[in-house]
Every structure is written in structure tokens, then in C-alpha cells.
């Protein structure tokens, strides 16, 4: 079981993701370079947070055309696990692997703090060790996290159980006051129709050890490990 973490120019959560995989959940992990066209046998590819290509044009708009993204696209279409965190989520939206787009936060501010999200679905590669509606405490850090999709698109996401995480209060109630960016329907994370591609704005790779204030990020990665184990058996 092997993880690959892509480094784009401007990625800055690449080492956090690497640390999470290697030291916290103790699995094999390798960095993947944006100019390469090889996923080096990864079973799960991580698109990390950061400011790829300086967020020029739109967040994720340039990274989408990096040579490695051709392979990621193909890998995802074949059912491979791809998780995009924060800027990684923005890249997946631009690539079209996930539906919708990001708008500027309604506050227009860079929001950097711990938030609460609720696991809406637990039958996914990314949330299968969570209880239904379990509340996770995970930090966000972004300016463009205001998820947008057409009304029709939102209805599709709901019908197909593609909304995986929603912002909530500490008790797990969906509450606009606990939505950090104005995202439609308090959406914090969604997956594609097949369920193998996940995008989320909060940073689970930043909270896998007690010293960091929360260990809840582990749930996401332990779910991936659990899913891949099941597939190996």
C-alpha cells in the first residue's frame, strides 16, 4: 500500500501530508513531481494544500495543466483513489474530476482556524471508520473555499450521496454561523459519482497528533488504509 504526494510549485502542505502518512499512520509514501508523468505505483494520490502557481488566474487553474495531472486524471477515471485537500480540492474542481467551483470567501478574508465538520456519509473510502454524523475537529486555511454549484448540481450531489463533509457546530448541528466561508449548503467536502475522488477544504493532514490540537484528521487517512486493505484482501 503506497501513497503519493504531488508537489506543485507553491504547494505548502506537501510535507504535512507526507508526515501524516509516514509517521502517523505509518505507510509507505513518496513525493511526486508535477513535471513527471508517473505516479510510481501509488494506490492513493494526495493533492496537497498550498498556493500552486501563486493562485494566478484562479486557484488551481494552472496546476490543472501540469504534466502529472494527465496521469492523475487517468488514474481517477480508472477508479484510483485521489484526495485533494484545500488547494488540491480547487485543482480537482478545475480539472473537472469533481463538480462545482470555488468562489472567494464571503468575508473576503483568509480564514485560518479549527472548524467542525460532520461525516454525512460513511460508506466511502475516505470516511468509513467514522460513525454517521460524527463530528471532526479539523482546521481550515483558505481564501477561496466558498463552494458553489448550480441548483441542479446540488440536487445531484444530494441524490447520489456525494456530500461527505459539512460544516457544523461542535454538537454536530448544521448551522450557518459555523460555516467559515459561505459555502453552499455548508459543504466542506464532496466526492465524485464513483466515490474514489474526494475534495475537502479542511486539512486532515494538519491534525494527526495530540500536540497539534486535534487527532481527528487521522479518521480520513485511516479510512483510506481500511479501504485499501479491503481491496487487497
Amino acid at each position, binding site marked *: 500500500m503506497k501513497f503519493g504526494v504531488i508537489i506543485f510549485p507553491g504547494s505548502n502542505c506537501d510535507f504535512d501530508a507526507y508526515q501524516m502518512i509516514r509517521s502517523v499512520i505509518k505507510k509507505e509514501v513518496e513525493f511526486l513531481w508535477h513535471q513527471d508523468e508517473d505516479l510510481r505505483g501509488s494506490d492513493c494520490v494526495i493533492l496537497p494544500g498550498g498556493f500552486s502557481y501563486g493562485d494566478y*488566474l*484562479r486557484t488551481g*487553474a494552472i496546476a490543472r*495543466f501540469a504534466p502529472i495531472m494527465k496521469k492523475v486524471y487517468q488514474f481517477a477515471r480508472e477508479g484510483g483513489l485521489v484526495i485533494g485537500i484545500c488547494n488540491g480540492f480547487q485543482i480537482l*474542481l*478545475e480539472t473537472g474530476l469533481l*463538480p*462545482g*467551483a470555488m*468562489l*472567494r*470567501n*464571503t*468575508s*473576503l478574508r483568509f480564514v485560518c482556524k479549527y472548524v467542525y465538520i460532520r461525516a454525512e456519509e460513511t460508506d466511502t473510502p475516505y470516511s468509513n471508520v467514522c460513525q454517521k454524523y460524527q463530528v471532526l475537529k479539523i482546521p481550515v486555511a483558505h481564501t477561496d473555499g*466558498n463552494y*458553489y*454549484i*448550480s441548483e441542479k448540481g446540488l440536487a445531484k450531489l444530494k441524490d447520489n450521496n456525494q456530500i461527505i463533509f459539512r460544516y457544523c457546530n461542535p454538537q454536530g448541528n448544521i448551522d450557518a454561523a459555523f460555516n467559515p466561508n*459561505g459555502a453552499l449548503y455548508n459543504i466542506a467536502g464532496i466526492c465524485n459519482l464513483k466515490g474514489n475522488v474526494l475534495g475537502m477544504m479542511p486539512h486532515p493532514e494538519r491534525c494527526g497528533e495530540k500536540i497539534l490540537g486535534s487527532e481527528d484528521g487521522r479518521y480520513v487517512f485511516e479510512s483510506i488504509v481500511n479501504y485499501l486493505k479491503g481491496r487487497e484482501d
Partner: protein
Amino acid sequence: MSKKEKTNRTVVYVRLKEGVLDPQGTTIKRALDDMGYKGIEEIRSGKFFEISFTTENKKEASRLIHEISDKLLANPVIEDFKVEFMK
């Protein structure tokens, strides 16, 4: 440049679609309200790109600039674009 090729000078305007919330425009409007300007009804923000390029004819130029705008300059999920050819 071969004899046949001509330089096209274009401007591509990109803006959020009707109905898509524009937090920047809303905030700028609020600032103008606070500054005491009356009658400002709405502000929609956007951006533009000046692009010069060569093609053999106008038809090819139009096709190319629309393709570039659709593929990269605008995100069709939230944005519209408009192309203008300069003299």
C-alpha cells in the same frame, strides 16, 4: 511571420455569471455606500486579458481566442467571457 499571417489584438473580459454571488463586488458596493455615494445599485467585478497573437485569417483567430477563453481564462461553471477585437 509569413506574408499571410496577421497580428490580432484582442481583449477577453471575464466576469461571474448572472446569479453567481460576487463577494468582491458586494463589498465594494458597501464601501461606496459607507462613503456616502447614493444610488449605487450593484457592482459586479471581473477581469480582462489583452492578448496578441498571429493567425492566417480572422475566422481562425476567433476560433482560437474562444477556445483559449473557454479552456483556461474563464471557468465555465461560474464565469462568462466576452471577446473584443481591437483595430
